[in-house]
């Protein structure tokens, strides 16, 4: 399981610090898929990458990350090598470009394993089994990446990043470039990694909440580098409490909703600058419920069992 406490990841720029992830706390239990949703610039990708690949201009500014009760030295790029790939792994956003174009895929996998001090032969059986798991024929190992379609390359990367059964797998916007039909297949496949016990916990990062509704056990909504709301999938879907989550979900069209039957409306305004952000709640500029207290840092409210929101206007359910 993963525990994150008060994590701060800022980008250093000439003008100052961009607070991409600011004081974020959450956890992911064993056997759980946590969906991480938010709009562009909300810090979701920074968070996902920061947990595994923290490097400048992204900088660590405090907080604690524990994986299976061991503290992760996420600010030490070298020491993280002991954890990367074996304990936690990522499927990057542009997985299609992650393979070395000059190497046959099998050779490349061998090289990667050897560079980690692992004997490739000892893992061959597992590799073939995993290929079957994602519906790839064995012969892809003898092919160059250019011979594979985008979807096949992505599945190949999925196999590689889970080869050592990491405890935590982070999937960063893996489906945003895909068509709906392949999106469904890939999502179910990733969920399958968890269900088959290949990985213990999963963080699935996306901008599309409806995808999370399909596969996630819990959902965390981020806004402007902070957590807005965390809850079980059903809680978020049927009872969103943070004004941002509410408005976001009411702005999503779905098959079944037509303009003629009722106009959806978006959220007016823009997210705030994360370079010198305003104090207090960062959503207040766009929030219809804004009050005086919103200029202060919003409190954590325990809405119900396992459902929290960072907002002044949310009350606890009795």
């Amino acid at each position, binding site marked *: 399981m993963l525990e994150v406490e008060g994590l701060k990841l800022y980008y250093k720029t000439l003008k100052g610090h961009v607070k991409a992830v600011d004081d974020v706390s959450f956890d992911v239990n064993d056997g759980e898929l946590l969906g991480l949703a938010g*709009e*562009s610039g909300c810090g979701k990708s920074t968070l996902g990458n920061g947990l595994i690949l923290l490097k400048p201009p992204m900088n660590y500014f405090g907080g604690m990350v524990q994986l299976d009760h061991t503290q992760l030295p996420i600010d030490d790029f070298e020491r993280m090598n002991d954890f990367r790939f074996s304990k936690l792994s990522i499927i990057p956003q542009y997985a299609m470009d992650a393979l070395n174009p000059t190497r046959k895929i099998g050779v490349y996998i061998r090289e990667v394993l050897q560079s980690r001090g692992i004997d490739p032969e000892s893992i061959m059986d597992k590799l073939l089994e995993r290929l079957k798991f994602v*519906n790839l024929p064995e012969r892809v190992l003898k092919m160059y990446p250019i011979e594979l379609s985008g979807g096949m390359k992505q599945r190949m990367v999925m196999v590689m990043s889970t080869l050592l059964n990491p405890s935590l797998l982070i999937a960063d916007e893996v489906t945003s470039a895909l*068509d*709906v*039909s*392949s*999106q*469904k*297949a890939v*999502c*179910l496949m990733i969920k399958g990694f968890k269900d088959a016990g290949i990985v213990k916990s999963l963080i699935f990062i996306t*901008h*599309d*909440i*409806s*995808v999370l*509704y*399909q596969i996630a056990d819990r959902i965390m909504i981020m806004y402007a580098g902070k957590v807005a709301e965390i809850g079980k999938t059903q809680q978020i*879907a049927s009872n969103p409490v943070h004004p941002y989550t509410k*408005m*976001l*979900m009411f*702005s*999503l*069209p*779905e*098959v*079944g*909703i*037509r*303009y003629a039957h009722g*106009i*959806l*409306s*978006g*959220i007016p305004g*823009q997210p705030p600058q994360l370079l010198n952000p305003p104090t207090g709640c960062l959503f207040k500029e766009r929030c219809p419920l804004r009050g005086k207290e919103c200029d202060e840092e919003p409190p954590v409210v325990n809405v119900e069992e396992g459902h929290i929101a960072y907002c002044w206007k949310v009350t606890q359910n009795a």
Partner: protein
Amino acid sequence: MLKATNLSKAYSVGSLGREKFYAVDNVNFEIQEREIVSLIGESGSGKTTIGKLILRLTKPTSGKIVFNDLDITMLKSLKEYYKHVQGIFQDPFSSYNPIFKVDRVFDMVREEFYPSESVNSWKEKVTGVIESIGLNPKEVLGKFPHQLSGGQLQRLLIARALLMETKFLVADEIISMLDASTRIDILNILVKLKERGLSVLFITHDLSLGYYISDKTVILYRGSIMEYGDTEKIFNNSAHPYTKMLLNSIPSLHQKWSNTDASLSGRSAPVGYCKFYDRCPLGDERCKNIELRKVEENHFAACKNV
């Protein structure tokens, strides 16, 4: 108002360009006045090519496009046509020349279409139109493209189209790069414009967006139309296996995916077969030379089971 007949666009591929790849393959459709038609397809379906053909950014290999009795397929002088038919593209940041201020797209319209208009009265018009689509002119004019958000940039392009006598708008994935919370407002603007007499070809890969705003829907797969008709009928009584598969794959906030898998079958479609033959669960030897057939009033599908 706009009618495409047997429209095809082929590209040469292979060594020495001997093989032809049909990005758009014998497509027929018609768009009426005050109508929003969604053109829905996955990547590689040819939807963007159709948009470009209508805007005459590329010429068709065969077939024709007629706009209000004017065949524009091989038209030499397009200026008059562009006064009435305009487009907005997917990437708002690439739609503006990065080294100039955003105002320039408006100045360009004045220079090319209304050179007699004085700078001041044009400025007033621009301000008015920008206000009418819900932007504050002071916040957006005089800015460089990278200083504005994608949503603001796309709205400005809608404003640009409104400055002309636009009757037909090609909107090619115009909100796919925008954030969820600001997307819907742009769709609402399009519907309002439709109510004021504009026709829109709304190109998208997202079925829910198409369902939300359009009167008619065209489902495109690999350059061919699979299903075509009233939006309600296509979504609620879909006749083509491809449409059904798409509807099955959309993630919804209220219903979980059913377990029918959307995986790919390995076979390839022989020449003359339905384009969806390679993935269709119902594919057999009868899937040859299938044309659009009537399912019901204003609803057509290209499948043997219709």
